[in-house]
Every structure is written in structure tokens, then in C-alpha cells.
């Protein structure tokens, strides 16, 4: 068996929140050898109220307001963060728009975290919407140029308008880690529409053993979207974008990006 967790994480969005697709993209960063961990843990994270209720109401599980200043986080900018030697979760929580470039290089993934599988499903029906796998990268002899490795950190999704009607989406991530143990592995994912923050998700993976393969499902809960907002998102494909920041011990080690269209099939 492999280590697994199910997390609802923390999320914050405005009252007129916009629906966002779940999860992000498997990274192309290399992983180490694979051994499976025999322990299994189920963790449920929650919003502001805690994490025990199976179906907390949106008002309870979602922090009000998307402005980071409302929750005591100082506003930051991409330019400021580029000057920092290390970037922390608090730093990215202060970002007000999508970053134009990556906040860390591919080489900063010193823990060799490698995403090998990604799956999203509709929690209400159990329908699997998308599943993708990637064999673990074992060949590191050919070092790719940074520009190619940056391209490997970006994915593009073409959803249909039907996706915007979903309320709860589970994103399962399978990943391997290198020879070093990983403590406080955490992902903060921020979604924007036209550079306006729509929703910020905060998930903790917890501890990962060295040379292990781990699976974790994060549940994204989306409040209903206004018809006008959905229309705008559909009419302007790829103007919905996301940044996924991964931290180990409160330091940024990976940064992935994605953008989304909701006009697929039209």
C-alpha cells in the first residue's frame, strides 16, 4: 500500500466566487527510485472551522474575501519576491495576480518530487473526468535547457462549459520523492480570471518518507458561479490561469502553471 491522504484543505474565495478546475499538472521534474510505503493515513483538512464535518457549508469552510489583506497577509508582488532568496507560503498568499514568470527554477526541486499520476473526478457522481500518468523520470543524463524545463511546468486545459457546473471535484495526485525525507509538504494553488484572484487553495501533504511513492486526494469545493461570470470565463478562453506553489519546510521548491478554457466543444 502507499501512503494516502484525503484532504479538503483550506480555501478562500470572494462571495461571488468563480469556479475553478481542480488540481494542476504533473511536474516533469525527475524523481528517484520508487518504494511503496506501507502506512495509510486519512486526513481531512477544512476551512476556517475545522475539518471534521463531512460536508461543511460554504460559509463555514471558505474564508471570506479573496483579498489577502483581509486575512492579515501582507500584499506582495512578483517583483519583490524575485529579489528574495527564499519564498515562503506567506509570500505567495500575498500575490494579487498571476505571476508572469516562475518564482523558482527547476533546479530548486532538490527533493526530486516527481508527479507520476493525476486524476480529477466529480465527487457527486464519482465520474472520472481526466486521468494522466507519467513514468518516473530515471534518465537525468541529458540535462534539458531551462527553457524546456520551464515549458514542462506548464499545462493547458480545454474544459467544456459543463465543468463550470460542478460543485465538488476531487484531485488525486501521485508522486514520488527522492532520497531525502520531506516534511511539511504543502501546496498553495491560486486561480485567477483576468489577473483577478478567484480562489486560493491550500493543501498539506504532510510528511513523506524518502524514496517513497505517495498518493493524496484533494477536494476542491466550488461555490455556485454567477451566470455572468461563467459567461465571461467561457467567452475568454485561457484568461483563467493558475499558479501552483509547492513548499517543503515553508520554502518554495516548485512552481507550476496552468491555464484553462471553458469553451471546449463549442
Amino acid at each position, binding site marked *: 500500500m502507499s501512503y494516502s491522504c484525503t484532504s479538503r484543505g483550506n480555501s478562500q474565495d470572494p462571495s461571488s466566487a468563480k469556479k475553478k478546475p481542480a488540481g494542476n499538472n504533473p511536474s516533469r521534474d525527475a524523481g528517484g527510485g520508487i518504494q511503496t510505503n506501507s502506512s495509510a493515513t486519512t486526513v481531512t483538512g477544512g476551512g476556517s472551522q475545522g475539518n471534521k464535518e463531512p460536508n461543511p457549508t460554504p460559509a463555514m469552510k471558505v474564508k471570506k474575501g479573496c483579498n489577502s489583506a483581509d486575512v492579515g497577509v501582507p500584499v506582495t508582488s512578483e517583483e519583490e519576491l524575485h529579489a528574495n532568496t527564499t519564498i515562503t507560503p506567506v509570500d505567495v498568499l500575498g500575490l494579487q495576480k498571476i505571476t508572469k514568470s516562475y518564482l523558482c527554477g527547476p533546479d530548486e526541486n532538490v527533493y526530486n518530487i516527481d508527479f507520476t499520476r493525476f486524476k480529477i473526478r466529480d465527487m457527486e457522481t464519482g465520474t472520472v473526468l481526466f486521468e*494522466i500518468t507519467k513514468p518516473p523520470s530515471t534518465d537525468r543524463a541529458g540535462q534539458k535547457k531551462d527553457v524546456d524545463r520551464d515549458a514542462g511546468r506548464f499545462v493547458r486545459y*480545454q474544459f467544456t462549459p459543463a465543468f463550470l457546473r460542478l460543485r465538488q471535484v476531487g484531485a488525486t495526485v501521485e508522486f514520488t520523492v527522492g532520497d531525502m525525507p520531506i516534511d511539511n509538504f504543502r501546496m498553495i494553488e491560486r486561480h485567477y480570471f483576468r489577473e483577478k484572484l478567484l480562489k486560493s487553495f491550500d493543501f498539506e501533504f504532510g510528511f513523506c518518507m524518502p524514496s517513497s511513492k505517495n498518493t493524496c486526494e484533494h477536494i476542491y469545493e466550488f461555490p455556485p458561479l454567477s451566470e455572468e461570470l461563467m459567461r465571461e470565463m467561457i467567452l475568454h478562453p485561457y484568461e483563467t490561469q493558475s499558479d501552483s506553489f509547492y513548499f517543503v519546510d515553508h520554502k518554495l521548491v516548485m512552481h507550476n502553471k496552468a*491555464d484553462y478554457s471553458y469553451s471546449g466543444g463549442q
Partner: protein
Amino acid sequence: MDIGGVSRKSVPILSAEEAIATFKQDVDRPRCASTPCSPIKSTLAGYQIVHMDSNYLVGFTTGEELLKMAQQWSTSTPEQSSLPGVSPSFVTTTGPKANDLGIHRGSRILKAKSRSYQPYGVPVANGQSRRRMPSSGDTLLRSLTHGESRKGLHGPLPLCLIKGNRAQAKSLDYLNLDKMSIRESTDTEVLQYQLQHLTLRGECLFSRNQT
């Protein structure tokens, strides 16, 4: 289902086998000891799409594939164009009509592109006119900035990819300049020699007129 709640027409669902078949063929990889399952034969830049429900998701691609498409776009001729509408590297389940539209649109865009490019000429030396050699970054960036024309196909490239390519293009520009200076040193010297003689002749004429 569209935004009005009306159910959409059913679109052909791309099964996992069909999805794999549309990917570009990679060299067969040997089995890995830690992954005893069948080797992955067809991948999308290293990924394998196992399932895609076309009721919710009709397309997925990576940044690498987007850049490759952009490079193909910038280097291909209208006759040899690989048409983005049917590019296998962007997995899509849209119907044949949409693909045909993409093909037609792609051809028009390529033709317009080739007409608009006019490299400037360089003064004649040794009886042969020369053209400025465009750097590979120029053509790539030109294709990357055709956001509006390609929006209907795969959307504009994200800024993070363009920035990365711009950095690469700068280094390529530098290399091109080096090559140009090496190749054209003789021509430059000839021009300089001729310029010096013109200057001397001018001075001689001036001195004659004065005397």
C-alpha cells in the same frame, strides 16, 4: 451542457486507445524494473492520458507541445504546413467539422504570414546583394505573437513560455551576430576600403577647387 443548461450534442468520446493513437510515436522504452506494467508506447511529451471525459474536458496539452507547435508554425511553408487544427500533440475530441475549420484557417494564416515578411536588403558588395539573416528567435517570436490569429485554434501562448523563449532567442541572436561578423568580415573590409577611397577623392577634389 452549455451555459443555458441545454444539453450539448454528443461528441465522440476519445477512448484511451484512440487518445494514445493520436500521439506522436515515441521510441519504445524498455520496461523499468519498478514499473512492471506495459511500456508506454505513445506519449504526449512524456505523459500518457489514461482517461478523458469529453463531456467535461476536450483538450489537454503541455507547454512543450505548445512551443513545438509554435516552432512548426514559424518554420513550415503553406504547402508543407502541419495544420494545428489536427496536431496530434493537442489532444482534443472535437468533431471533424471543427478540425476542417481549423485546417482552412491555418492555411489562410500561413499564407498571410509569408506575404508580410520582407527582409530588408543590404547594400551591394562584390556585385551580390545580401539579406539580413533572420535569427531563429525572430521567426519564433513572430509566430508566438500571432495571438489573435491563433486564438481560435489553441489560444495565445502564455507569457511564461514566451519569456522563456525570448531568453533563448536572445542567445540565438547573439550567435547569429557572431556568425554574420565572421562571414561578412571580407565584405566589411571592402566597404571600409571603398569608403576611405571615396573620402580621399573627395578631399582631393576639394583641394583642387580651392587652388
